[in-house]
């Protein structure tokens, strides 16, 4: 049986090599064909051709690990066909392992959720991590080993590579170098040592384009040795972020988001008053109570001012060696900045030991050093911030590593270069010309999921196995040992980094399984038992393996240099319209570019800008006026010799004369989805100034470019703009914590509508009645719910053109509102507060959509859901027209017809795949409700509260979404409905939505105007 499968599998692969589609595929694989200009239909078409050509009949069938491929006639122990199973595994981004719980349906992994036992996940999962499952089935993934020689391409197989590697990596390893990505895997570390042991003269480099090396270096400057920093927001009373985004852009962001949400709970929380000083608009900034927009290059000055204020005004004692940090007085500081500094300093002192100062990874080590000193002086160390020893203290920084490698390649010292993952040809600093250098290396081997930019320049390309296909291990940000097990046999015969490294290290071909298990034994120093192994795999983590915290002491010698470093930074002048500042940030969706070929992520609207399928130059309205560019105009940006054209997106709340643009776009060999989407901004990146560029000139070109956004741009016609502002206060209710505590009814005081009475006798809803409550005070707008919903409900990707036509399909819309002063028009505003409101179908009891459907395709279930009967729908779209929330989505085309067979393997079999011409929408994950109901009926017990978890609620890191039975007064959702903060959006229409929202509470210093007051106030009067 199994052999037969294997045979058909290989035969089909052989066949495919002759198919014309395949040749077409190869032709199209070459770079520079501009997919962005092609309509998405063509892109989908192409996916189809790719998928179909590879005759994946063999693959689409259930693919257990080989030894288990057996007919269900005598089915393996403990596996029931059609019953989904969940396995704990893990993935790794940037050297931190994240625990997953992956649902597998008949051998196909279909959905990734967070592993509750994992310290960095706690059951939640970010949008990016969830979308990884789509990458597993990506038809563009590399399918074979390639040898490129003399302009020719040869298809090889692993045995050929093994023999090649065998002779290549014999000897002392002189002229041999390995370039790996950051990894926390003990197994890889062990192999790394073994490799260097067998090849003493070989060199080992680690490079990540996005890293926290500055923070790491900063700690060294303070404590003399490198330590890893762990913020804890759960008990924090004051959180000060300087260009930092702990709620989103941090390896432990999921944990931090949950802690923050807990701290902001008006009843039980510690308050966690949030101060943010940043140039761009981060998700953390969107939650700030006091936010000041300062250019990234001025952030050091801002922090220095705080330090100075603390010492001067509040007599804070700094360590002697660090005294120099104080004394810097910034005369050019604006009133806003001064005000911010005064408030923050006072607050930090009053909440000694319960405040924390965080600095973002873009800032120089000296700034991190200052933050560490302040945390130390304020007694935060040990409470709101803890340290652990750095896992690899003697590792040079990533930039140093790649620079050194480049230097040696240029010096012809490198004969063989083994690149384990990563994509340096694309994301190495521009000044290194790494791509050209790489092409010059005699033998270069690249292990990668895709035949990407780097592979194209290497002699060998090895297909890597996806993390859901391979064995492995890693460490959480706090060191907890995390295991990884495959859920599916490698679809395309790829191998993992450890397996390849084992070959290079001379161990010969070894299965990842044995490597990991042996690695584990070595780590514990004794052969581990099967029981231990099974338990570890079951949990996905090994408890009690987190690193011990250390209490480092300041190191005067180093501190001195830190102080000097800071003073240098303070000399940086303010950016001007002529010489603006450009900040390069990792993208919230494609990260450093590695996820560029993921349709879910490309189409995911950026939380702040709502841009899909693009990266844009973000500047504030005032800056736009100064420079003379307008929204959606193409700007020509010149920095460090490089000149790029980027579409402008005007975003209020950005620092004056500071522009922000995301990295990770403009890929040329990402695959058919990601090729040519957006602009490659790595061209701006240099080892000298990797993240913050000064003296940048921005010029308008007069040409415009339509950015595919899912919401209005900030700049729209006046009448629409004013009305939008007028309505926000009523739709997204807010109050300050103090005001709320003294008058809980404040949330409802703005409601003015006649009593809500029906013309007819209201329907009695008996039994279980499902309802949802969304806590806007917890929501941080991280988009995780959107991807969870997309994965759970088989929601199609429609492509850039269709998004431009406003036909995006995500069921959850994360509504983003700017709050500005009443009455001002869009060209008078520079700053604005941002509030989020996740909006999916609210399951109205008196649903307007139902009564207008002529064929009763949408009607009410007995448990109060606004059900959508797909096979009954004829698509009049009347329901959508009559939906005041506009949360219904219509299949304008057949978006599934042209999907690759592999991509279809991801589909959730519990959910109908909607055909063309059918309306669809959220139904509270009715398939999950029914699954639980059935089990409960089988065990003849009532459904317990919290047993049913819609995908969005399950994955929310801030646990903002609660779901349950409204007829059960003890259920969580009923209780949150009882809260004073609870309100229904558009309640005045008397449509009785089943989803309620809990008002958001800001926590500004009493009496002091909060950041949004400056930007227009809560607008409680209006509504």
């Amino acid at each position, binding site marked *: 049986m199994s052999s037969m499968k294997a045979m058909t599998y290989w035969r089909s692969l052989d066949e495919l090599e002759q198919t014309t589609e395949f040749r077409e595929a190869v032709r199209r694989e070459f770079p520079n064909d501009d997919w962005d200009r092609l309509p998405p239909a063509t892109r989908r078409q192409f996916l189809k051709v790719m998928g179909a050509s590879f005759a994946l009949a063999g693959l689409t069938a259930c693919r257990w690990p080989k030894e288990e491929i057996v007919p269900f006639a005598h089915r393996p122990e403990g596996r029931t066909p059609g019953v989904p199973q969940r396995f704990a595994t893990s993935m790794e981004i940037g050297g931190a392992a994240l625990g997953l719980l992956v649902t597998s349906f008949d051998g196909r992994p279909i959905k990734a959720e967070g592993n509750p036992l994992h310290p960095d996940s706690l059951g939640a999962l970010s949008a990016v991590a969830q979308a990884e499952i789509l990458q597993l089935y990506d038809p563009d993934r590399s399918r074979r080993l390639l040898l490129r020689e003399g302009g020719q391409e040869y298809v090889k197989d692993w045995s050929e590579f093994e023999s090649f590697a065998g002779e290549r990596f014999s000897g002392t390893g002189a002229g041999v170098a390995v370039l790996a990505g950051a990894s926390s895997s003990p197994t890889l570390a062990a192999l790394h040592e073994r490799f260097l042991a067998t090849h003493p003269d070989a060199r080992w480099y680690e490079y990540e384009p996005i890293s926290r090396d500055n923070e790491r270096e900063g700690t060294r400057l303070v404590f003399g040795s490198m330590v890893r920093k762990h913020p804890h927001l759960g008990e924090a009373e004051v959180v000060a972020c300087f260009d930092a985004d702990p709620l989103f852009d941090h390896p432990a962001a999921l944990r931090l988001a949950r802690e923050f949400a807990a701290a902001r709970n008006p009843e039980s929380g510690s308050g966690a008053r949030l101060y943010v000083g940043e140039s761009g608009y981060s998700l953390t900034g969107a939650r700030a109570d006091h936010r000041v927009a300062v250019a990234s290059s001025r952030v050091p000055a801002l922090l220095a001012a705080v330090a100075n204020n603390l010492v001067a005004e509040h007599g804070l004692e700094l360590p002697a060696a660090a005294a120099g940090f104080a004394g810097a007085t910034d005369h050019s500081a604006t009133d806003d900045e001064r005000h911010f500094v005064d408030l923050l300093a006072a607050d930090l002192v009053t909440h000694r030991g319960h405040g924390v100062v965080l600095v973002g990874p873009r800032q120089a080590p000296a700034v991190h050093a200052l933050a560490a000193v302040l945390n130390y002086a304020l007694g935060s160390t040990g409470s709101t911030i803890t340290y652990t020893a750095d896992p690899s203290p003697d590792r040079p920084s990533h930039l140093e590593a790649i620079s050194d490698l480049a230097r040696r390649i240029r010096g012809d010292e490198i004969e063989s270069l083994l690149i384990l993952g990563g994509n340096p040809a694309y994301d190495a600093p521009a000044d290194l010309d790494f791509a050209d250098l790489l092409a010059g290396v005699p033998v270069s081997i690249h292990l990668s999921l895709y035949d990407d930019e780097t592979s194209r320049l290497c002699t060998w390309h090895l297909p890597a196995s996806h993390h859901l296909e391979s064995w492995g291990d890693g460490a959480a940000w706090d060191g907890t040992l995390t295991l990884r097990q495959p859920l599916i046999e490698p679809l395309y015969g790829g191998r993992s980094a450890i397996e390849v490294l084992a070959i290079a290290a001379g161990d010969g071909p070894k299965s990842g399984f044995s490597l990991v298990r042996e690695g584990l034994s070595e780590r514990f120093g004794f052969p581990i038992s099967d029981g231990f192994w099974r338990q570890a795999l079951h949990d996905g983590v090994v408890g009690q393996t987190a690193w011990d915290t250390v209490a480092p002491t300041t190191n005067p010698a180093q501190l001195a240099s830190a102080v000097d470093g800071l003073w240098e930074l303070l000399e940086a002048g303010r950016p001007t319209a002529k010489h603006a500042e450009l900040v390069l940030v990792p993208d919230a969706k494609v990260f450093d570019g590695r996820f560029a070929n993921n349709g879910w992520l490309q189409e995911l609207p950026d939380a702040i800008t709502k841009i899909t399928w693009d990266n844009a130059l973000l500047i504030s309205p005032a800056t736009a006026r100064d420079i003379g560019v307008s929204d959606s105009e193409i700007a020509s940006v010149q920095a460090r010799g490089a000149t790029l054209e980027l579409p402008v997106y005007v975003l209020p709340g950005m620092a004056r004369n500071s522009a922000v643009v995301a990295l990770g776009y403009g890929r040329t060999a990402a695959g058919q989805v990601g090729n040519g989407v957006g602009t490659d901004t790595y061209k701006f990146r240099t080892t000298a100034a990797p993240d913050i560029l000064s003296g940048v000139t921005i010029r308008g070109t007069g040409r415009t470019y339509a950015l595919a956004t899912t919401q209005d741009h900030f700049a729209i016609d006046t009448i629409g703009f004013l009305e939008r502002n007028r309505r926000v206060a009523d739709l997204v209710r807010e109050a300050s914590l103090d005001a709320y505590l003294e008058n809980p009814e404040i949330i409802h005081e703005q409601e003015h509508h006649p009593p809500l009475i*029906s013309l*007819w*006798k*209201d*329907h009695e809803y008996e039994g279980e009645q499902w309802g949802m409550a969304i806590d806007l005070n917890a929501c941080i707008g991280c988009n995780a719910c959107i991807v969870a919903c997309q994965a759970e409900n088989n929601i199609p990707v429609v492509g850039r053109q269709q998004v431009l036509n406003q036909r995006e399909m995500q069921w959850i819309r994360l509504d983003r509102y700017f709050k500005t002063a009443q009455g001002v028009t869009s060209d008078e505003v520079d700053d604005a507060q941002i509030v989020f409101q996740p909006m999916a179908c609210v399951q*109205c*009891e*008196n*649903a*307007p959509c*139902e*009564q207008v459907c002529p064929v*009763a395709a949408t*009607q*009410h*279930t*007995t448990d109060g859901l606004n059900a959508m009967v797909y096979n009954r729908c004829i698509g009049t779209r009347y329901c959508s027209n009559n939906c005041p929330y506009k949360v219904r989505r219509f299949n304008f085309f057949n978006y599934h017809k042209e999907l690759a067979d592999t991509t279809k393997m991801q589909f959730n079999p519990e959910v109908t795949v909607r055909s063309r011409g059918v309306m669809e929408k959220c139904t509270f994950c009715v398939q999950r409700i029914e699954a639980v109901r059935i089990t409960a009926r089988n065990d003849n017990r009532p459904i317990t509260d919290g047993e049913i978890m819609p995908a969005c609620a399950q994955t929310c890191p801030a646990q903002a979404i609660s779901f349950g039975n409204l007829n059960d007064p003890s259920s969580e959702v009923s209780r949150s409905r009882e809260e004073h903060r609870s309100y229904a959006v558009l309640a005045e229409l008397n449509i*009785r939505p089943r989803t309620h929202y809990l008002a958001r509470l800001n926590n500004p210093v009493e009496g002091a105007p909060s950041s949004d007051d400056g930007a227009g106030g809560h607008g409680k009067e209006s509504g």
Partner: protein
Amino acid sequence: MSNGAENAGLYGYLARFDLVDEFLAGATQVRDAGYTRWDAHSPFVIHGLDAAMGVKKTILPYIVFAAGLTGAAAGILLQWWTNAFDYPFLISGKPLFSLPANIPIAFETTILFAAISALIGMLALNRLPQLYHPLFTNRSFKRATDDRFFISIEAVDPLFDPIATRELLESISGRPIEEIEDQP
């Protein structure tokens, strides 16, 4: 007198008029003469002619009224049976059957039934369609749809007398009248 075998193959007599008032006068005389199986033909409606001929008022209105009521009932019943009885479903928390929502359709069905019955009823009462009629054999009768007026008396009329009837018609129309053959 009786119309016996001598009338076999004869449908009746046809008198032509050029002017409306002669025509009307003629019709009155024929009526007064007591004929029953006769008719007047004009290219358009001539008011007063019904009076002149003594035509009884048609029963069409009652037919149409009945049909209208049936339509209304059918409309209401259909909506009640389909939405409230046979396959009830909960829509927008509204009652399964509420008259206001059913008025428009009931109204339409009322009109529909009534209108159809009006046309069908009219044709039925007129014994139409009747594609063959002896009068069609007469050439000059073709102008009955153009600009001439005719009076026809059928041979089956009890008062019909080949001589007397001919004289009557000739006297009122002032021109020789034509015999209409009745082809079997």
